[in-house]
């Protein structure tokens, strides 16, 4: 069967991509609009970016969001990787079914429920809400994504490498560190990136679990957006999109060069 791109297939892909990218493109373009009105194009300008330089509240919120995202993504990566490792090993432990249920459920759990239930937990154990409660909430929210990504990589890779190491007398923990970990490193990195961007993005869970002095960037943007479109927000969003785009492209390039290096090494070994 020839894989010819028929007109219908090409058209549906083109339309789909246009649908996905048009709104974002418009947003980016209008962040450079000199006019305050949305429909009125007042020429290219950086005025809203200059305005941002003086907006201390937004900068403060961005700094908090960044710290929350780094901390929660790192914790989620450790927990998620452990969970994925446990789920792919056949060894028995009590409550395996419950554990695998808990490991996947947050993936589809409505955020309002996760947020409300975590808040009620913090109230019940009398914890002051603020920076750290958001970190804990985001760790819980994002670790299941890390679990799924790392788990699919663990299933793919060649288990005989681990078995060979252990047969040669390498203890399991050392095997994990020296054999398994390097092999699943790309998945762990991808998991961290996803957890990071999900945390940076989250409005609902953060709104429930935050406290005074810990306003994250999405909460800030949301409260501004509710009052209508503001060109400064277009500028904030454009900066966030640029950061994400650069990060994604850089990480895929790193992954690609890593794959190329491995391929060359494999070729070298054959010769």
């Amino acid at each position, binding site marked *: 069967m020839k894989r010819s791109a028929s007109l*219908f297939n090409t058209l549906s*892909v083109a339309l789909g991509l246009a649908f996905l990218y048009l709104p974002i493109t418009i947003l980016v373009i209008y962040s450079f609009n000199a006019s305050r009105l949305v429909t009125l194009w007042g020429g290219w300008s950086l005025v809203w970016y200059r305005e941002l330089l003086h907006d201390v509240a937004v900068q403060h919120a961005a700094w908090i969001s960044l710290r929350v995202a780094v901390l929660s993504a790192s914790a989620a990566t450790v927990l998620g990787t452990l969970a994925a490792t446990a789920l792919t090993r056949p*060894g028995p432990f009590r409550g395996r079914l419950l554990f695998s249920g808990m490991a996947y459920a947050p993936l589809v759990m409505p955020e309002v429920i996760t947020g409300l*239930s975590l808040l009620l937990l913090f109230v019940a154990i009398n914890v002051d809400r603020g920076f750290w409660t958001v970190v804990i909430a985001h760790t819980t929210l994002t670790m299941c994504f890390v679990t799924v990504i790392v788990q699919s990589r663990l299933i793919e890779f060649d288990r005989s490498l681990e078995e060979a190491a252990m047969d040669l007398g390498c203890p399991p923990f050392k095997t994990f560190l020296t054999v398994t970990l390097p092999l699943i490193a790309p998945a762990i990195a991808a998991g961290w990136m996803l957890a990071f961007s999900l945390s940076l993005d989250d409005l609902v869970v953060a709104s429930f679990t935050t406290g005074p002095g810990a306003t994250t960037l999405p909460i800030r943007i949301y409260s501004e957006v509710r009052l209508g479109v503001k060109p400064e927000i277009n500028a904030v969003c454009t900066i966030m999109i640029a950061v994400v785009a650069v990060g994604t492209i850089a990480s895929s390039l790193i992954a690609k060069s890593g794959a190329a290096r491995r391929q060359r090494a494999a070729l070298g070994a054959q010769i």
Partner: protein
Amino acid sequence: MNGEPEKRWNVRAIVLLPYLWLAVFFLTPFVIVLKISLSQTALAQPPYLPVLDLAAGWAGLIEFAKELSVDSYRLLSSDLLYLLSYLKSLQVAAISTIILLAIGYPFAYGIARAPRGLQPLLVMAVVLPFWTSFLIRVYAWINILQRDGLLNDVFLRLQIINAPATWLSSDTAIYIGMVYSYLPFMVLPLYATLEKMDDSLLEAAADLGCPRWKTFWLVTLPLSVRGAVAGALLCFIPIVGEFVIPDLLGGSETLMIGQTLWTEFFSNRDWPVASAIAVMLLALLLAPILVYERLQRRSLEEGR
């Protein structure tokens, strides 16, 4: 696996940390939500009664159990507002999922039939918007849909409409926002199953003289059902509880259940009713969540 104990993975040790974390921060909170949904609102801090006093021992526990009430649930079933809210959520989720399938299927099919070398790039193009903020993507539509926004501007210039129409604060806007935000969740699982499909089956059908549309109907479609189900659940479940999209794009006549929960909690400060809404929402979603989990586990185990 090896029989010698020192060569075995100590799964118990590996699982301990994530297990404890999930038990404390995922499972326990649900028990607390259930408990508070059976409490009553009070002008106190925290704003509900009774508060469980563990120091009082058994007597305290019995006292506590006596004071539990189903008032919140009674309110949910008697006030039409909540029922309408649930129905609205189900309606929005069902219609959005159908539109997503209709748009996502040809999209995924087109990617799966594209030249092999191009496919990773196209998949990345679908995933990339998912990495940018959800809030930003919804907000982008406000720019377009508002009264003096771009859509009205373009339509007026093309003389499709004579006067600016109201797009924002309507169900149409909610559907646009839902479909836009959840499209990658529909396309990716569909692509995954379509891409894995054995081409020789299609060749066999073609060799035996089956017309292309019939091959699609008899071979491709049945083989991609699993991807479609996974995609549909991945969209349907979170859309039912969605808050941001209806709040920013929708109107204020009938709220979706996520908005109702939010209002009860943040505006009315009625924690027991908010908890009861959460419990009912979870009950509503339990069946689809369990189906999704089974699919997820099966597909991961088959990959072995």
